[in-house]
């Protein structure tokens, strides 16, 4: 009897997961077609050159980035937008990042009144600006180490502008990134846009020179290829639907734009979580719901931000481990909104979905595996049943990935070179067998660390150079 119940639960979970994927993909398809139509004749040139276009601050925290900091900053400074500045927050780096920046950009220390609306770690060397008019958009802040969230908060305090774009310093932003991302804030008249999220594309093996993406290639490493497919699935078929439902719960920490006033109102980034990028969106949404203001979190599906993905299993696992802990922390902190009618879509759809299909999925999967092992050891396995279930889920996963690839071809078609199509297909077949176990392991470890390992260290992501020439 108990066996039947367990089996039924597993079955219900898998079936509903599959259904939810299909539904989200369908919504995404409709929304993507609509987006493509609307954007087929938009002229971004006018916004770009207009002096009355709103001002944006790019905030990029940097910690021990000496290897590429000068080049990364140059790339951020070459955006084709008029009213923006770049705030580099040197978060107590122990290397010579600051010296390098001072030398490369003729920086001098300036008196800068900071409106400390969000408490942060104190400044170390202070605020720097360039004496060279060519770099007048650059502000460098040197502060004591306080982690990424703390560095972003310092940037929020310093920014004089209405909007802030929070990004990873090693991201490559395409020239038109800012004007495309700012569009939803400017054109929405019936509700308040509090944030807009962008797409992250993986830059491994791509040719990047002088801050420009010259050539898109598919990396050789299977782990990176797997992530490419994973990102495509999430961005093309997942988030697009969530934005349509106005239920987007997360904006990639690597690239998102916020309404500064709202971000400060809710107290900025939470320095106590490892999932600060998800947490701030949930908190901002919660705040808007509680204020009863009509609001929106927008999403721009164009590939505007390219970044390096981890290419070693060790770093990959520690990254996913951190993501898992971030999700758990955020969901626990905002438990109140879950299944709560006062929070509308946020409480009734987004939160439950994240809880069940993101938060609990690895737990359920591990439980399933243990149960399977138990059956196996006791020779209870009906192999034909097992095989058909495995086959079914495998085929669905692969088919879903292939649909993702097709969507990419029909929309952005970034992987133009001959042969990549076949390689992506192979990845779709191999990924569930080779990459998935690592993701599952990392998620399980994240759960373990969260509950039992109190002094976990932050996973450090050793970065490789962006420019590969």
């Amino acid at each position, binding site marked *: 009897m108990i066996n039947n119940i367990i089996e039924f639960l597993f079955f219900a979970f898998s079936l509903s997961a599959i259904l939810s994927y299909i539904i989200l993909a369908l919504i995404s398809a409709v929304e993507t077609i609509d987006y493509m139509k609307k954007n087929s004749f938009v002229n971004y*040139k006018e916004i*770009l*050159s*207009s*002096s009355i276009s709103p001002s944006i601050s790019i905030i990029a925290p940097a910690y021990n980035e000496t290897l590429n900091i000068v080049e990364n900053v140059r790339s951020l400074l070459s955006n*084709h937008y*008029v009213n923006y500045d770049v705030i580099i927050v040197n978060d107590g780096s122990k290397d010579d990042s600051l010296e390098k920046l001072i030398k490369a950009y003729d920086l001098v220390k300036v008196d800068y009144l900071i409106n400390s609306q969000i408490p942060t770690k104190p400044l170390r060397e202070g605020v720097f600006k360039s004496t060279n*008019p*060519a770099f007048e958009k650059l502000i460098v802040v040197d502060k004591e180490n306080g982690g990424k969230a703390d560095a972003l908060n310092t940037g929020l305090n310093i920014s004089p502008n209405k909007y802030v774009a929070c990004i990873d310093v090693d991201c490559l932003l395409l020239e038109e990134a800012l004007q495309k991302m700012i569009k939803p804030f400017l054109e929405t008249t019936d509700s308040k846009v509090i944030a807009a999220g962008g797409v992250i594309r993986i830059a491994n093996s791509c040719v990047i*020179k*002088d801050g*420009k993406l010259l050539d898109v290639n598919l990396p050789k490493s299977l782990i990176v290829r797997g992530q490419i497919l994973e990102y495509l699935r999430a961005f093309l078929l997942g988030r697009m639907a969530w934005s349509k439902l106005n239920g987007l719960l997360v904006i990639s920490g690597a690239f998102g734009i916020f309404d500064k006033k709202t971000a400060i109102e809710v107290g900025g980034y939470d320095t106590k979580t490892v999932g600060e990028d998800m947490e701030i969106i949930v908190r901002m949404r919660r705040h808007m719901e509680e204020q009863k203001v009509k609001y929106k979190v927008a999403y721009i599906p164009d590939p505007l931000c390219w970044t390096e993905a981890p290419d070693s299993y060790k770093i990959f696992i520690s990254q996913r481990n951190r993501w898992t802990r971030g999700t758990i922390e955020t969901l626990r902190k905002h438990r109140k909104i879950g299944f709560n009618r006062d929070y509308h879509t946020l409480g009734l759809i987004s939160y439950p979905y994240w809880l069940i299909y993101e938060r609990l999925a690895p737990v359920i999967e591990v439980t399933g595996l243990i149960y399977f092992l138990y059956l196996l050891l006791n020779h209870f396995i009906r192999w034909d049943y097992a095989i058909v279930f495995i086959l079914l889920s495998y085929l669905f996963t692969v088919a879903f990935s292939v649909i993702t690839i097709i969507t990419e071809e029909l929309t952005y078609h970034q992987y133009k070179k001959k042969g990549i199509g076949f390689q992506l297909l192979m990845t779709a077949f191999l990924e569930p067998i080779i990459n998935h176990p690592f993701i599952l392991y990392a998620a399980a470890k994240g759960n373990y660390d969260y509950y039992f390992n109190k002094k976990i260290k932050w996973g450090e992501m050793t970065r490789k150079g962006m420019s590969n020439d």
Partner: protein
Amino acid sequence: MSEVKKVLLAEDNSVLSLLLKFKLEKEGYQLFIAVNGKEAIEIVEAHSPDIILTDIMMPFVSGLEVISHVRYKLEIQTPIIVFSSAGQEEMVIKAFNLGATDFMSKPFSPNELSIRIKRLMR
């Protein structure tokens, strides 16, 4: 008539550069076309043109960098005309500070351009 005058055109709009190439070649100049700032710098170094026409906003290396390279790295006084679009006034000022000789705001008339070139070559 002395030797043929060499003109460097750095412009990423292929139709416009084709149009100007025809026009200026018909008027007896020898044309070098660059599609970005980097190529422009290479051509300047290899062929030392008599006049440089460059767009301000170009991929890879901007027109401003071309000017600064010519004036400060190579230290030559070849006349430089920059093309700008509406709303790039700030850039034009920067270009003049760097040593641009003249500027034309897009959209411009090709005839006017050829008159200005003639005047600068004298």
